């Protein structure tokens, strides 16, 4: 009984109090035919030491080498203090802050988080986070449907340059409410094909990702103005780290974006197989009542001292049930804790320097790799920290070969973009050293020559 504290005497005292003969008696209301006592598929219990032995062996088997994969999850440095503080039991083992007076730590922290995300995105407000960036886009789409009363069509335009998994997830979330997603194709230069927009009818919202899935910078000003002129909302999907360097969605075009979402992983969250991370969701003041999920507000206690509490709860499922803005019932509290501490440590300057170094390292990586005969940049426009390369052969095969050299070479794009079977999406974060980049270059050269 690894975590049950009862001694045999305790059990006797408790049964006597209840007036039962045995623990089994406590299940006497359950019909006999439903009772089982066999769990053959569950192994016998082991000690913590044995469990850690097994898990350590498995974890060690997955140490694969130097990571040049991005595609929505990035290998950044995380300051030691971030998870030292986040893993404190007071943060990690607390529940949803429904009892505000007993949860001021979590509540104030989320208020600070909301403030930082609003600042970073250039928007008015943020919620307390949603599950991840992809599901956040689904929520953003539904939010646009509720909020944009001017447009009757239930169509959302989504750029083909948005992360394929985001597109898939958002559609799977929103389609049950009659939302139709139309894809704006990608042009030969790797950006949204603006000419395709002319043929589009009435739409509720337009979704654009900056930097886009290929790492390229879209003409977000033009996209935002195009949407604004037609009464459509502009939903921005962004990498929060890039916003220390790039123009924030609140300043796009003449009016700015309406809803901003994305994944918070670059802000102090380990890659950890992609989760848990968190999705952020920010918007204009006027849309806040259509926001899903938790929102924290500052208020006063009965002595007039400042304090923090859940607010606008009439949007949420535990109050409104079937009429809520979403069924979401948690945020990703612990990850938001890490991100808030991360942003506090880095500050605007620190994040900007990391962003700049990512750009610089990716330039070095691209320069090194295209020095190999047959390796070329697929697109030519300005980019952040990811780049698509054309290889002289199938990129999936090359990625497998690179594993032998301890290199996670990037994401082969053929599965996601038919016709791009030789293309590889590579990424270099601030962690990638000149030595690692040279190692990648020489390994790739060997693989291509073999």
């Amino acid at each position: 009984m690894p975590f049950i504290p009862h001694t045999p005497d305790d059990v006797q005292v408790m049964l006597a109090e209840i007036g039962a003969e045995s623990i089994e008696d406590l299940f006497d209301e359950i019909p006999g035919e439903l009772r089982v006592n066999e769990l053959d598929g569950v192994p016998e219990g082991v000690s913590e030491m044995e469990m850690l032995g097994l898990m350590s062996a498995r974890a060690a088997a997955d140490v694969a080498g130097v990571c040049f994969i991005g595609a929505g999850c990035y290998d950044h440095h995380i300051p030691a203090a971030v998870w030292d503080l986040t893993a404190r039991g007071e943060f990690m083992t607390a529940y949803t802050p429904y009892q505000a007076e007993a949860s001021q730590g979590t509540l104030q922290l989320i208020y600070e988080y909301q403030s930082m995300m609003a600042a970073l995105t250039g928007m008015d407000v943020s919620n307390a986070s949603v599950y991840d960036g992809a599901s956040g886009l689904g929520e953003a789409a539904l939010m646009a449907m509720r909020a944009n009363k001017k447009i009757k069509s239930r169509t959302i335009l989504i750029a083909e340059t948005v992360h394929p998994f985001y597109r898939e997830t958002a559609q799977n979330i929103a389609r049950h409410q009659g939302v139709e997603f139309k894809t704006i194709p990608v042009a030969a230069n790797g950006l949204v094909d603006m000419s395709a927009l002319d043929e589009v009818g009435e739409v509720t919202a337009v979704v654009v990702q900056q930097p886009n899935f290929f790492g390229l910078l879209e003409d977000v000003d033009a996209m935002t103005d195009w949407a604004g002129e037609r009464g459509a909302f502009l939903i921005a999907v962004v990498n929060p780290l890039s916003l220390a360097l790039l123009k924030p969605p609140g300043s796009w075009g003449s009016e700015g974006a309406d809803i901003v979402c994305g994944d918070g992983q670059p802000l102090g969250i380990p890659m950890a197989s992609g989760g848990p991370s968190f999705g952020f969701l920010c918007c204009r003041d006027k849309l806040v009542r259509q926001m899903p999920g938790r929102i924290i507000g500052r208020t006063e206690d009965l002595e007039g001292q400042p304090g923090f509490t859940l607010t606008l709860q009439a949007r949420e499922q535990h109050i409104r049930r079937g009429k809520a803005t979403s069924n979401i019932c948690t945020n990703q509290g612990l990850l938001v804790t890490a991100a808030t501490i991360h942003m506090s440590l880095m500050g605007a300057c620190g994040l900007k320097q990391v962003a700049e170094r990512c750009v610089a390292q990716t330039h070095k990586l691209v320069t090194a790799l295209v020095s190999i005969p047959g390796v070329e940049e697929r697109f030519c426009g300005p980019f952040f920290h990811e780049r698509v390369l054309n290889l002289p052969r199938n990129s999936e095969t090359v990625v497998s070969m690179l594993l032998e050299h301890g290199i996670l070479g990037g994401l082969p794009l053929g599965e996601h973009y038919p016709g791009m079977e030789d293309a590889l999406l590579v990424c270099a974060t601030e962690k990638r050293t000149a030595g690692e980049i040279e190692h990648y270059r020489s390994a790739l050269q060997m693989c291509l020559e073999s």
Partner: protein
Amino acid sequence: MKKNAATIFELGKTGRGAMAQRVPSGGTPANIPESQLRKVQPALPEVSELQVVRHYTNLSAKNFSIDNQFYPLGSCTMKYNPRGAHGAASLPGFLGRHPLAPEAVSQGFLACLYDLQEILKDVTGMQGVSLTPMAGAQGEFIGVAMIRAYHEARGDLERNEILVPNAAHGTNPATAVMCGYKVAEVGLDASGDVDTEALKAAVGPQTAGLMMTNPSTCGVFERRIREISGVVHDAGGLLYYDGANLNAILGKVKPSDMGFDVLHMNLHKTFATPHGGGGPGAGPVGVGERLLPYLPVPMVGERDGVYRWMTEKDLPQSIGRLSCFMGNAGILLRALAYALMLGREGMHRVGEYATLNANYLASRLEKAGFELAYPDRRATHEFVLTFSKQAKSMGVTAMDFAKRLLDYGIHAPTTYFPMLIAECFLIEPTETETLEELDAFVSALAAIQREAQSDPERLLSAPHDLPVRRLDDVKAARELDLVWRAR
């Protein structure tokens, strides 16, 4: 405790920073046009590393948590979160794994997911499990989406309604609506069981399914569950099991045997992963044979000891992907670590000792003069107490009792839920609490009851000894202050 509520922003000064975290910049990128660059830096804090550490350490001290306090929050299963499980998920090989790393260098992680799928299948009696849902509510969404896919695949397109008992969690009706269904609620009888006559009257050709928890949110086991599942199945509907209360019957009853076709489990409850101040959770879904083709991807398959991802290519009728990668992978690893330590014997004991603790507490509270909502029923892993009499005779509500409990260093139970019971507490002690802790809870509530008689103001103005006094929720909603601005 410190009353200071200064934000991190107010601690900063222009030019200050945690300089050990600064990396040599690559300089302003020459390739990015001026029009794409940020002109004004975001207003993030400018603070030293020590200021950050001190600020957030002090903030953490303003939280109640399982590690600090007894936390008998009904329907939330606030049991001990084993450090060993946290350690396992924090192993460098797991933390450093990129989600899109090739299968050849992911066998350790995939093996863990596969093992967890198998364990959860056995515990629930289901035929297939997908681990992708990132929370209980997302598991519900996925479950109902599968019910919809099932009916649609059969061309059974008239089913537009989901039934839920009126004691259900708010997520149930909200989920049904998100999946495009109407919601019809079914009442309970006086003993807390579903009113089966009302259910029979409610089902029909429009019924897509029924969502319910068992044990219910009233803290009792639904005794007529087989009859209920028969009624719904006969009408052509499917049964959804909300696994929020699985802790009560872990290893004792399998949802498949009760007639459920699809379910989600809350690993952050039953499998002891930390709640994190409100997430992350994980809500894997399990299905019976009829819904197997619709499970969300990715899942993990195995052949000859080699593990691989299963995608839409393997499951062409899948309802698809609902998270960017593999859900809350780190939570899944913690749940596996916990399950490995429990083992098959430990699983049985979870439900047994959770039930023992709840029944003991219910019995002691009843003898101390408190009123149980269902005194003639066995408590399951939780039970409902009602303060209706106190509210009527002394003018102190369940909320006042809850706030005063905080002063006694005990987190309040769930208040005002289930909504159909007036002035209620839903109390779930969990199996990891000692007899002494339960006795201390009884003593605290009894002491508060005496205060309610002698000095009700003490309750009405509680809490007294926390970082803040009772907060003004109305002001928070009317004068929205959601982001910090320099004042």
